[in-house]
Every structure is written in structure tokens, then in C-alpha cells.
């Protein structure tokens, strides 16, 4: 069956809420009926057909073509199937994502993967602020799954993350990994100020040594970690090839919070 495809007809002026267009909800529906579905905009309601040409059948495999940063909440709350976004995505991409895969060829705006709990989100480009962080009303940020960011990440990446894995191919903004409760973040590029601020548990792994390391981290020296082998192999299984090596400098912190987390600065 061909993928159920949503091709954007014209660039929307106001943000569109595409959270209804997920495999869970569209299973068994005809393209014609889907085009008639209500599509909430920032302040009103349009129909899916107003903005998208809908073709194909297979709701377990969604495609969005030509989307822009006004296309919000793509894949939000989705729990199954695969979604491919050929274009950019707006805010709350894959927020509260519960399972399946979501891939974006372009960039995503704020709150990408926020409060996701399972599945894999793979964004080839950059993401805005608070990716993998909290959404409004949540007590925790990302709670599981994998969030792969090919490009740069905005500030407050992974704020109060509780479980799961995030990788950043490029650079990350300030307060990356702030208040993380648990989970793992791999930074391949640079990070902004106050990375790991208020970290309770969890691992921040840096390919490049951060320019600033918070004074409330305790240096534990360079050690060999079997764990790095495991991580490297797990990433490889997900198509992310990165050499982590065996040794890393370990700093424990943030002593301002619980102090049971770590920074691993790879050698």
C-alpha cells in the first residue's frame, strides 16, 4: 500500500495544529474523508483539505511533503507507525510521542520531542528551544525513546529529562541538559553555558570538551568505561556511527542538585 501522503498546497500564514494526523487516528480512513477533517489553526479552524493534498492509503506510513515551520504538532502524541516529514516542522514536533518512528529531513522548531515517552524521532536539521524538554503542564521532560538531532539544538535541550537517549550532531544552546533527572545525552559539537545545571542523575557525554564546566561538578579523573562500548554499539544499531572510544574524563554533579549525575568528556 502506498504511504498516506499530505502535500502542503501553500505555505500557511498562521500555525496549523497537525496533531490529528497520526497513524493511530487515521487508520481505516479514506483520503477523501481525511481531507474533510477539521484542522485547528492558531485562532480558528480549517480543514485538512484546505492546506493539504491528501493521497495514498497506508495510515501506518505517513508522509508530509513540503511542510514549513508553521506546521505544528506533527506526530504529537503518536504511538505507532512511521511518519516521514520531507520539509521543516513547526513547534511541538512529536511532543508526547509514544511510539513508532518520526523522521524529519529539515529543521524543527521549539519543543521537538518534548515529553516524548517512547519511539524514535530523527531530525536531520536543527531544532529550536526545549527539545526533549517539558511541555506545558508536565512535571518531567522526555521520559523515554530516542531523539536524534542531526544539526544544532536550541537552549534548554532535554530540560528535566527522565529517561531515554538524545544525540546532537551539531552544537547545543545554553542550559543543555538542565535539571535532567536521568537519561543520556550525547553532544557531538559545542555546548553553550551552564550545560548540566541542576542535573540530578543521568549522563551528559561530550565529544568536545565544553568551554565552561560548572564549578559544582566534581572531577573524578579519566577512566575506562565498558558502558561506552555498549552505547557505541547501541547507537550503531540505530544508524548513528560515532566513535566514543574507551576512556572518558568523568565529572559528577550537579552537586547543587542531587549530584548523582555525570559528565563524560570523551578522550
Amino acid at each position: 500500500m502506498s504511504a498516506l501522503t499530505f502535500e502542503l498546497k501553500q505555505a500557511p500564514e498562521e500555525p496549523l495544529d497537525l496533531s490529528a494526523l497520526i497513524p493511530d487516528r487515521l487508520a481505516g480512513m479514506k483520503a477523501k474523508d481525511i481531507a474533510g477533517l477539521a484542522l485547528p489553526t492558531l485562532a480558528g479552524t480549517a480543514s485538512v483539505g484546505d492546506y493539504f493534498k491528501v493521497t495514498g492509503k497506508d495510515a501506518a506510513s505517513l508522509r508530509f511533503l513540503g511542510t514549513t515551520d508553521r506546521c505544528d504538532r506533527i506526530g504529537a502524541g503518536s504511538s505507532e507507525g512511521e511518519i516521514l516529514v520531507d520539509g521543516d516542522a513547526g513547534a511541538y514536533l512529536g511532543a508526547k510521542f509514544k511510539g513508532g518512528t518520526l523522521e524529519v529531513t529539515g529543521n524543527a522548531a521549539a519543543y521537538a520531542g518534548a515529553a516524548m515517552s517512547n519511539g524514535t524521532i530523527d531530525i536531520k536539521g536543527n531544532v529550536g528551544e526545549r527539545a526533549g524538554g517539558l511541555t506545558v503542564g508536565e512535571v518531567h521532560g522526555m521520559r523515554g525513546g530516542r531523539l536524534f538531532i542531526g544539526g544544532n539544538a536550541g537552549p534548554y535541550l532535554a530540560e528535566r529529562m527522565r529517561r531515554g537517549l538524545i544525540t546532537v550532531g551539531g552544537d547545543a544552546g545554553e542550559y543543555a541538559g538542565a535539571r535532567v533527572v536521568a537519561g543520556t545525552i550525547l553532544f557531538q559539537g559545542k555546548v553553550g553555558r551552564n550545560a548540566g545545571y541542576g542535573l540530578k542523575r543521568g549522563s551528559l557525554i561530550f565529544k568536545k570538551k565544553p568551554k565552561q564546566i560548572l564549578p559544582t561538578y566534581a572531577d573524578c579523573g579519566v577512566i575506562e568505561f565498558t558502558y561506552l562500548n555498549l552505547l557505541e554499539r547501541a547507537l550503531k544499531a540505530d544508524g548513528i556511527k560515532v566513535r566514543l572510544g574507551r576512556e572518558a574524563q568523568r565529572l559528577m554533579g550537579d552537586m547543587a542538585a542531587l549530584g548523582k549525575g555525570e559528565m563524560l568528556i570523551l578522550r
Partner: protein
Amino acid sequence: MAVYLDGTEVEEADGLERAAELLAEAKLPVIAGLMTDIAGAQSALALAQKIGGVVDHAAGEGIARASRLMREGGMNPVSFGELRNRSDRVVVLGEAPLQADPDLLTKIFPEKTLPRPGDNPRELIAIGCKPKGVPSSAKSSKVDLGNQSLATGISMLAAAVAGRSFGDGESALGKSIATAAKKLKDSAFAVFVYSPLELDEPSLHVVLDMIRELCKDTRAGGYTVAAPGNGDGVNLCSVWTCGLPVRTSFAHGKPEHDAWRYSAERLVKSGEGDALVWVDALGGSDVKPPKGVPTILITNPGQAAPRAAKIVIEVGVPGEDHDAALYLPEISGIGMIAGKGKASGLPQVSDILDAIGAKLNAKEAA
């Protein structure tokens, strides 16, 4: 009063009519600034509900941080009265508290207090600020952060209070922090004084953790410097009216809060918001409305040029030109300030917003 349309003075009714049209045409009107009294806030919320708009405040960023903190972890707020009468160690974090009220220290450390716990002399611990004129009723010590930011200073203090060793523990700053931490641990009632507008959000959480560490055995709490422009009053009003803080949209009927999405500044900059009502009525603020969309500016006479916005409407100053309910830091709650002169003849913010609402009603009916 005067009402200006495109810089030209017009009849009040015409101005309001045009304002109503402007809002009626807008997809997502934003009612913000909201430097006004509770009556003004109530009218703003009612108008937002009517037109499906967004409410925000000029101090919305700090309010949003404090709201998120409260929602995620809670808070141990201390009233000004308790701070003034019962605290022994008062930690002022950053420069904002003393900038907001130059007499703050005099108010915190009066000659005489109500009975308070413990035997410690009262003491100011200044971190990241340079207090002047500390009253003789209090001792005073200072932590000079040097190259470190306020955020890192706060985290070092929290680490020291929790008794966890860390990298810079042995530096001069580390030792100075350790001394301050010891005083806090030996306190009977420690209070942290700070502004949510100045502290980064993660720092607010660290301060809360520190309070909770301390209050296991003794008392501790936070005193947040009131948001400027009656921000706390307006925010409280939003919370009790619709259950949610400012940065709430009524566009889809039910209130929806999103501290990022419904920031007035972001909405205007992104073009998502397409009309702005900016209320700046408490005697003029440094915070100016974000630019880029048709704006109805409600402000006091002399505060803005007639051309400062599409429509400029002059109103009285709440608590000066008329009685007003405002958030009063002294009671950490909403109080009444009586107007001084009744002769200004200027309308209140609520009058204007209600009148615009009434025009919209009339339009609907027509």
C-alpha cells in the same frame, strides 16, 4: 482624556469604535502589557474571552518562570511581614531586588520585630549584589562572585548547603560560599530574596531545592520581588478567573496556557498575533510594546506620543486618579490604594476595555 487615531485626536466614541473594528478583524488579538489594576485585568480577561484573544503581561517572562516553578515543584513563599519580622538570615540574590526597591533593606530590617525563632542576630547575606545602607539592626556579609555568574553562585551555595563537595569548593569563592552556607544551616528562618525576572529558570529550581533542604529542620522560604506593573495582581486575577496564569489564549473557547506560544512578544514578532492592545497605565513603564502589528495603546496622558500607536487612548493612573486594587508587596497580596484626586476625569482601563467590549457586542447584535 484624549483618544488618537493615527496620531490625530478623535472623539472617544469613534476611537473606541475603530478599536473594536480592529479587534474584530484580527485573527488573534493580543491583550498585553496589562500594567493596570485588578479591575483592568478583569476587563482584559473578559475581553479576551469575548474576542478569542490572548492575555499576557509586560513582566510575563518572569511570571512564566515563577508559574512553571510552582507547577513543577511548588514553592515556599514567605510574606513580606514574615520576612520582616521573623527571618534571621536574609539572602539577597542578584541585583534586581535592591534595584526594584532602594528602601528594601530598611523595610526588611526594622528596629523592632515581632517575636522570632532562634537566637541568631539578624543578618543580610548579599550574593551577586552590592547592598548600600544596611540598617544597623542587621549584620551584613557579602559573597563576591567574581567571574562567576549569579546562576553558578546559586548552584555553589546549594551544593554547600546540601553538604556536597564540588570542584571549586577550595577556591576563595568556594570558601566564602561555604561560610554563607553554614550560616544558612545554622539559621532558624532563612529567607531568599530574589526576582524571577532576574534568575534563570533552572536557578529558581535550585533555590527551591535549597529551601526544601533547609526547611527539613528549620524554617526557610523565598520572598520574590513583586513583578513590575502589578504583574502579580494581574496574574492572580487570570488564575482565579480561568484557572490559568497569563500567556493564556481563549482563541478556541476554552482557556489554553502556553508560556512560550502565548508570549505577546513572540506572537507579535512571528506575526501570529495580528492586533495588539497594550495597556501601560501605571504611570509609564520602560517596557515598550512589541512592534509590527496594529496597536491600541492604553496609557496615561503624557506617556506616549499620539503617533505611538494606531490608536492611543488616555486613561487615569490606578491608585492615583481612582481607587484601585493592586498587588501590594507589603502584604504579599492584593490591597486597595485610594485615588488621590477625583478630579482628573480620566477613565479607568476597565472602562475603556469594557466599552470596546460593548461595541463588539453591538456589532455582533447588528
